[in-house]
């Protein structure tokens, strides 16, 4: 995972961009958010953008990241994180803005905003935690809930005939965003790759190319009612089968 040695001295395990006073963090044991935000924290450190960054979080478990970073942060309303950071970026293009949300904030109530941000190729970076349910409110169905998966509002298992198949968010963004977009899907089961995607996403914004979007497959053992072994199985098998991991859009390399 992280490099313990940097310049021949023992590096701290916690990213510098993390706010120490709010650790240990409040996410559940086994939650994917902690892993994603660790990747993001390390990337912020490596790119040295802590001071130029604004971090926006949504409602849901992403809300718990409101005091997570040593970075200016705004906790918004459900689904409205993208409009808020878009508003900031357009008013002050020097900022590097990151929107952080879950499957509800990105693909349900926030879907119109994500879609339009993609169409307009907003120069923002969106990181979305996909754990196939609405965790914070007690485990209701999400757009990304898998067929047959039991949740509080699909107690007999999600019926795809009635409620459709899991939403493919990165595919949607990839389909509509103009040239310059960076779109990827990573997984907390492969942290090195995930961190790489997040880094490229931020670099894409810094280069002013267009929208950058990274979906992260993540675990929610609390609402999945799974133990550690079952949680990883779900992420590595069930989620990975339903949601293809990899880069979907990479900007064209501009010649000299």
């Amino acid at each position: 995972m992280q490099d313990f040695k940097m310049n021949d001295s023992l590096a701290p395990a916690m990213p510098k961009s993390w706010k120490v006073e709010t650790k240990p963090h409040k996410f559940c044991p086994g939650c994917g958010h902690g892993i994603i935000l660790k990747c993001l924290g390390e990337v912020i450190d490596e790119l040295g953008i802590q001071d130029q960054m604004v971090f926006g979080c949504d409602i849901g478990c992403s809300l718990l990241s409101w005091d997570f970073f040593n970075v200016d942060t705004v906790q918004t309303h459900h689904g409205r994180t993208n409009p808020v950071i878009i508003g900031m970026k357009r008013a002050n293009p020097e900022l590097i803005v990151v929107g952080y949300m879950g499957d509800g904030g990105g693909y349900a109530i926030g879907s119109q905003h994500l879609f339009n941000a993609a169409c307009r190729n907003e120069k923002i970076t969106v990181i979305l935690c996909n754990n196939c349910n609405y965790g914070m409110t007690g485990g209701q169905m999400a757009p990304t809930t898998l067929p047959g998966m039991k949740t509080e509002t699909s107690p007999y298992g999600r019926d795809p005939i009635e409620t459709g198949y899991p939403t493919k968010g990165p595919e949607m963004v990839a389909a509509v965003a103009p040239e310059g977009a960076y779109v990827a899907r990573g997984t907390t089961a492969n942290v090195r790759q995930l961190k790489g995607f997040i880094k490229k996403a931020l670099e894409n914004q810094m280069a002013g190319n267009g929208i950058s979007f990274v979906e992260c497959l993540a675990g929610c053992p609390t609402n999945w009612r799974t133990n550690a072994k079952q949680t990883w199985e779900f992420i590595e098998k069930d989620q990975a089968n339903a949601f293809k991991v990899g880069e979907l859009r990479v900007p064209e390399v501009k010649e000299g």
Partner: protein
Amino acid sequence: MANTIKIAIAGEGGQGVQSIAQILAEAAYDEGKNALYIPNFGVEQRGGVSIAFLQISDGQIGAPRFIEADILIPLSPRAVKRTQMHAGKNTIYVYDNSLIAEGEVNDNIVGMQYFDVTPPCPTADEANSDQQGDIVAGETKTCSFTRPGPGVDPADIPEVKKVIAIPANDIAKNELHPRVFNVIVLGAIIAATDVLPLDSIKKALEKNLGSKFTANPKLRDMNYTALERGYNLVKKAM
């Protein structure tokens, strides 16, 4: 207003405070009494302090929450501190004087949008089979949120009518079984309130856990033993 008994139970998330209150409320209701039970809210749910407010009456019950409790039962050192505002001159105070400290859970979590979830223990292989089931079929697998420690500081105990200390946690851990901790407390509450017969709790336990008792009759014995242990502990002290 007819005689209304106001009971407040508080403990660490995972200790089963809400289960106790719920069983009591149902037992009272089954006995033909009026009962109102409301779980506490706020940010203290992820392994932090959990409070249940229960009122039992022969007549109408007013507001769902109250300030001064007739019976106040804090079950952890942190719960003792947190419930001081519910103690008054007429309160009967039953606390757990086991030598425990609560789990190091910083329960000031800004942003909780729900409050009924105690996160499962990530290292548990099996479910706790005697926890109240959730609406969705699936067992809760909770960790213990207490560890050995100095216990309650007597200086934290407020001015009340009567103080009774019971080492429910220790008894559960050392003599009976950790999972019947809250049943010991149930017995203690019945003895302290005198508002319900012990049998009504046995009936309520049967109703809630009957199927598990049938599958494993030793569970029934263990629960009833725990119930009577708690009951006798307090009855002697009253």
